């Protein structure tokens, strides 16, 4: 008899109790995101897709010194230097093999010209392996650009390594 009353009590008391939590969540903002329509902002220390910086006048910062490639533990960076018309050193070929890259950020640390940064972009998938080799053209930031969304990240890097803020 006792069990019967307990069972009835479960149905009529505990269930509405639980359902109340469910109903309550109908009016609470959900924690999940409607990915890919919605995206989570990444931590400023997140290391995603690499990009190559430019000077304000649009010239590439990278001089192809090879330190990023030397620092790379996964040997993912390949570069060939060249000479510009002005006689400056520049990269003719700059490739990062994504399938090899472990996103450690050593290239960013090694770069003496503040040219390469690991950005916030994390969506990269492709149908073939060749597409995972990023070339210089794909990685260079657009010029001119209105706003540098990653200025904050760059500022942080400068601060960490004690570099004075040269990029506006």
């Amino acid at each position, binding site marked *: 008899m006792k069990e019967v009353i307990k069972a009835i009590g479960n149905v009529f008391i505990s269930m509405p109790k639980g359902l109340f939590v469910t109903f309550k969540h109908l009016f609470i903002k959900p924690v999940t995101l409607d990915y890919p329509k919605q995206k989570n902002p990444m931590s400023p220390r997140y290391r995603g897709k690499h990009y190559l910086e430019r000077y304000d006048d649009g010239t590439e910062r990278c001089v*192809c010194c090879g330190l990023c*490639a030397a620092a790379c533990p996964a040997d993912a960076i390949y570069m060939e230097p*060249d*000479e510009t018309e*002005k*006689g*400056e050193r520049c990269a003719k070929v700059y490739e990062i093999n994504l399938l090899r890259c472990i996103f450690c950020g050593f290239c960013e640390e090694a770069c003496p010209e503040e040219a390469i940064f690991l950005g916030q972009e994390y969506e990269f998938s492709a149908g073939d392996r060749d597409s995972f080799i990023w070339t210089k053209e794909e990685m260079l930031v657009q010029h001119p650009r209105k706003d540098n969304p990653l200025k904050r990240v760059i500022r942080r890097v400068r601060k960490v390594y004690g570099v004075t803020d040269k990029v506006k």
Partner: protein
Amino acid sequence: MQGKVGVFVSIGIVMAEQVKKEQAVSGVPMVTATIDGREVTVPKGTTVLEAAREMGIHIPTFCWHPKLKSVGACRMCYVEIERMPKLQVSCATEVMEGMVIQTASEQVLQGRKAVIEFILLNHPLDCPTCDKGGECDLQNHTFAHAVDDSRYSFKKARYTDGTDGTTFDDKRLGPEIVLNRNRCILCYKCVRANKEAFGEYDLGVYERGNIAEINSAPGHEVDNPFSGNLVEICPVGALTNSDWRYKIRVWLTQTTSSICNMTSSGSNILFYKEKNHNKIYRVTSRMNDSIDDGWLPDVSRYGYQIATTEERLKTPLIKKDGKQVEATWDEAMTVIHNRFTEIAEKKGKVCLGGLASPYLDNDSLHSFNKLFRTVFKSNNIDFRSDYRMLPEGADSPYEMLVDQPFTIADIDDSDLIISFGSDLIREHPNEYLRMRKAYNFKRAKVVSINPYAVKSADIAELEVIHSIGRAETVLNGICLAAMEMGLVNNQDLTGKIAPATTAEAASDAGVTEDDLKEVARAISSAKKISFICGEMVSRSIARDTIASALWNLYLLFGFKDKGQMAILPRYANSRGAGSLGLLPSPSDGLRNTLSGLWGCFPESDPNNTDAMLALMRKEEISGFFIIGANPLMLYPDRQFVTDGLERLDFLVACDLFETDTTELADVVLPLSSWAEYDGDYVNLEGKVQHARQAIKPLYQSKPAYEIITMVAEKFGAPLFESIEACRKEVDELLSMTHSTKFPSQFLEVKPCYEDAEEEYPTPLLICDDPHHCGHRTEKSQSLSNFVSEAYIEMSPEKAEKLAVKDGESVRVESPVGKIVVPVRISDCIDNNVVLIPRNFASTQVTSLLMRKRRLDRVKITKVDE
């Protein structure tokens, strides 16, 4: 026990006495000092730095170079010496008896750190863009001394004068060299090397104090034939060259030790390559004190680019309907086999000939020799493609003189150096630098005897410029002068040589009697002589006459006891080709060894290059195999070669790229360069040196050894079981006791003059440009940046007579041909002789020459625009 100790003691005494004796012999007293607590005994005059290096103690330097005099400009090599109040520069302090030296004390390290801080005041921190990054002395020393901060807060100095306004302030000094004065630390190493070692004055220090700078001489380019060394010795990235500029980082490269293929002394080089790319990036020297002293002529440094050029032959070519079409190796081999067999059957006698290049290694040359002697049963084989009318016998005075031993390092100790008939810079740059070294450090007397004022004679105490084509008369004159002055006792020579008196000889040769006497006096008073004979002897048709005159000089002055005299070979493995018997009729000893090794030796008529070409014209030789050589461009009678090669039924030519000769060939095979296979080369001293494989054969090319063995296999007669078997045979041949022959008595010398022709008044000399060697270097981009087209070099007087200016074109005519070349006016040539380099295919300069002439004479007229 007692006995043993006694033995040791006595050995000790004997050894100590020996040391004393050696010191007494060399005449240099020894001093003992203590460096870092260890005692060292060195000859007096040794610097502290050298003594420390001998002990294995490293003292950092910027401005010090082992082959230059010390200046103490950089102050980096500070050491602490007891009882001296301040730090001393070890490179300019001689070791004194009882000195106590500390090389790494606190004070020393502090001093060096301060020096680096001073150097870095104005040194830009552009290591990422600097080519020296990774192998930079300043970078390394800065890192080693933990200099991580600068107290200097002002703007760094920039040198922008003369630059093209780029951010790096680079200034191009010459065709290859780029200077960045911001990076320069003023160690003066480049300027000192240029002056002391190379005798060039196109680079100097200008201004003084804080604004002192290295720069090229006003109005001049740095384009001397040793300029590449300046880049190599620069301790920072101030001097860079176009060859290596912005190509690759040095830490990505690997090095392979090899031997230079451009000079006959076989300079030791390092190839820098990247393993993934199968590509060579640059060449630097690998200091070998007995050969090159660490200096490389530009032709050795940039000559590697012939291997990496895009113009390389990529596949075998077979001529079909008058056109060369691409083919596979199998097809080419089948064609070679079929045609050679067909020709041999049709003619029914020996009708095949072969010409190898002296650039090839020992294995290739030996297998080529074996292919011809055992498979084709032919004695028509040679390696000399640019000498007219070659000597026949192995016992001719010329051949005996070519075989004489010669040691490059002995030039250092000679107190008299004579260069005879040799433009040393063009022919033997390494020996030229040795000569300068002997002059600089030992005050050796230099005598130059040449038909024109060669550039290497600027240090000569005595320069004898004789009429062209009278070399033997000059030598006879020297002998006569010595006899007349009573410098020698031997009078057997009288009557064997003409003319009879010094005065006659002097007037015949167009020199003064005093000059001849002066040379005779110099030779007889010298203790150690190096007598260097060059191409003007070996390429002359009168080479045996000149060699006889040289032998008379040799015997008269007793050179055997006091020096060395030799006609130096010209190409990387000329000496090896000779000692491997790649001649139509090798010496009896070689012939016996070869027939012992192979079990047979053909009995057919031996024919050298010249005789083979003559037989081709008679259609008695119908099949010809050329490997690496380019007779059409280099043989001194273009028409003769063209006629010969065109009448052939079948011609196989192997080379790195398309040449004049391969154009005529029925089958063209791509040859690998020396960087692409392992090989041994014999340098002019007879020293066998090994060149390692740096990269894999490019395109479809194959090393000469492989090509030759493939041909032999196609004929069903494999040459060797393996390359080791070939090397064993080569070793046996090279280890044969080589008996150098001497003439037992004075030789008769009858000068043979050619009369001048009225119509063609100017004697013409053909030789290499200082930046080129043979037919291949034209394809090297860096070398053609220096000189890319032929020119006619003439004296200002001659140019004035012809009313031409520098750079204007002239028509040069000889009885057999004519060419048009631009004029280059130079002080380094006598007024009536003109000179054209032979390294440029498009000029076809050999079309002016005739093979039976001693002198080539030409008529020069201005081209009217």
